[in-house]
């Protein structure tokens, strides 16, 4: 799953069409679109709006699954040519001077650059970095919910010293995003893979729900149960864990003890391929 935050409707529209996203009427605070893998929210302009939309989206999906995050939009740059896509490898909040460093573990199909987030439109083009108005708010908020390898900001250069921000229109923005849809997708797909990888790692063993239906486990005990059932699978035992095998136990506490005693007696052998 990936959550995408754009500031403007015209930045979102090419993605809505490309990924066949549908509007989600459940949300009233922000305009949201989604399919099975992507949720897109239009935040409005500015870092506060971006942070609010990011937090809103995260809070709307408390399911515990690991989502990737992408802030997509346009940015200025003093010298870089118009229409060039660039991933942020460092994000600076101009007002506070706070810095964030997205973790770059996925294949990167475009150049990367420092991105400075400003509070007011920057018209002097004095900075040697990309300049936008959302990324620091987005990143500060998203990093509360996910590790840095799954949070990125991708910008399409929309203005520079020659072609200034006054000349940007909805139409040109839409065209720039559309022209880079392949590059955008080449960032989104590996992020989806990373989030899927994390979900696979974090996924509780499927039998856990059968045990939880049979006995009442406190939150602490649920963690213990998850750990024990993972141990069971990792040991590559011939029999899978089944709540039926523990049916004579009346309490969750004795079930956990019984599973632990059973696992502690099992041999460990690395001759079979070790599970990851």
């Amino acid at each position, binding site marked *: 799953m990936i959550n995408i935050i754009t500031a403007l409707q015209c930045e979102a529209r090419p993605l809505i069409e490309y990924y066949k996203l549908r509007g989600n009427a459940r949300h009233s605070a922000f305009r949201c679109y989604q399919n099975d893998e992507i949720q897109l929210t239009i935040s409005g302009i500015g870092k506060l709006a971006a942070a609010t939309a990011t937090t809103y989206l995260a809070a709307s999906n408390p399911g515990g699954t690991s989502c990737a995050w992408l802030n997509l939009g346009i940015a200025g740059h003093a010298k870089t040519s118009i229409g060039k896509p660039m991933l942020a*490898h*460092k994000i600076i909040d101009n007002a506070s001077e706070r*810095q964030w*460093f997205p*973790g*770059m*573990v*996925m294949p*990167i199909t475009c150049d*990367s650059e*420092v991105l400075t987030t400003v509070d007011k439109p920057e018209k002097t083009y004095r900075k040697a970095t990309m300049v936008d108005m959302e990324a620091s708010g987005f990143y500060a908020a998203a*990093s509360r919910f*996910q*590790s*840095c*390898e*799954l949070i990125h900001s991708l910008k399409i250069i929309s203005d520079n010293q020659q072609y200034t921000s006054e000349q940007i229109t909805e139409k040109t923005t839409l065209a720039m995003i559309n022209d880079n849809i392949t590059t955008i997708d080449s960032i989104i797909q590996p992020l989806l893979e*990373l989030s899927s*990888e*994390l979900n696979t*790692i*974090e996924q509780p063993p499927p039998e856990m729900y059968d045990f939880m239906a049979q006995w009442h486990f406190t939150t602490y005990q649920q963690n213990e149960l998850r*750990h024990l059932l*993972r*141990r*069971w*699978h*990792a*040991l*590559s035992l011939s029999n899978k864990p089944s709540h039926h095998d523990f049916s004579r136990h009346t309490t969750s506490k004795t079930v956990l003890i019984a599973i632990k005693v059973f*696992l*502690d007696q*099992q*041999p*460990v*052998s*690395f*001759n079979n*391929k*070790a*599970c*990851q």
Partner: protein
Amino acid sequence: MHRLIYIEEEVADHPRTKAICDRFPKATKIYCKYYGEVFNRKGQNFRLQKQQPALILARKHKRHVLNAPDGYGIGGRHNYYFSHMLNCVYDCRYCFLQGMYRSANYVIFVNYEDFQQAIIETAAQHPNEETWFFSGYDCDSLAYEPVTDFTQEFLPTFAQLPNAYLELRTKSLQIRTLLKSEPIKNCVVAYSFTPDEISKALEHGVPSVEKRIEAMIKLQQHGWRLGLRFDPMIYQDGFEENYKNLFEQIFSRLPAECIHSVSLGTFRTPKAFHQNMVNLYPKEKLFAGRFDENRGMITYQKELEVKMTNFCYKQLMQYIPQSLFFACTPPE
């Protein structure tokens, strides 16, 4: 090959920074004020970063030489360690570094001169006494030699300090510098081993046991003193046969006369690190066996520790004199 190199602004112009960057001309350089901004921050995933680690070049400001943990020594009264690098190019599932650090990126402290000065000063505190310096605590001592030039830069320091002993602890085949250098008496190249089956399952990216033995033979023929480290010993059903075969495999090729020291220690990690490791690899077989907690350390159960240690000790005594043997397990 690193795609990204983070560089502390303070060392941007350091000659070693420039030399290392020259090795990765296509890497993107990202400047930071302090390496901890990248390396120590919250919200990182060690397992994901291990797929594509970045390089971080930084200055270490203080505490260049630290007291070695209990059980780390090989007979010396004064034991210290120093880390010019944090993290390892290998990916051993039992390694405590993955539980200790938030980041899998490699940090290289480029101010070798400060480490060397600290080593000289520390050795001077113990005149006429063997003082050991372990370099392979936070990284593999040799594995990144082509990038760091670590041995090339540090051996001359030890060559002029007769009471300072250097242990290079490694699983690496990067021995070219050592084979080009004149061996020094106060340096031990110590190779770590687990049995072949365990190595294949848990030591990802590490040269095979056989290749490591071949590297040791070359070093021995060149005149370097060698160490053997069976730490951590890893349990599996039938470990006796695994370790018996490993010792046979090693000592049939390397005579005891060329061995400086042999050490042995069972798998153990601080509880907090162990929990991080299990969270990173929840389906890993290594962590699925029975463990006990003993004074903040996660260990095999006591009886198993004793059984493994006694068995391996007896086996080793068939090959080496008692005087070469050192137990790594910290005293109770």
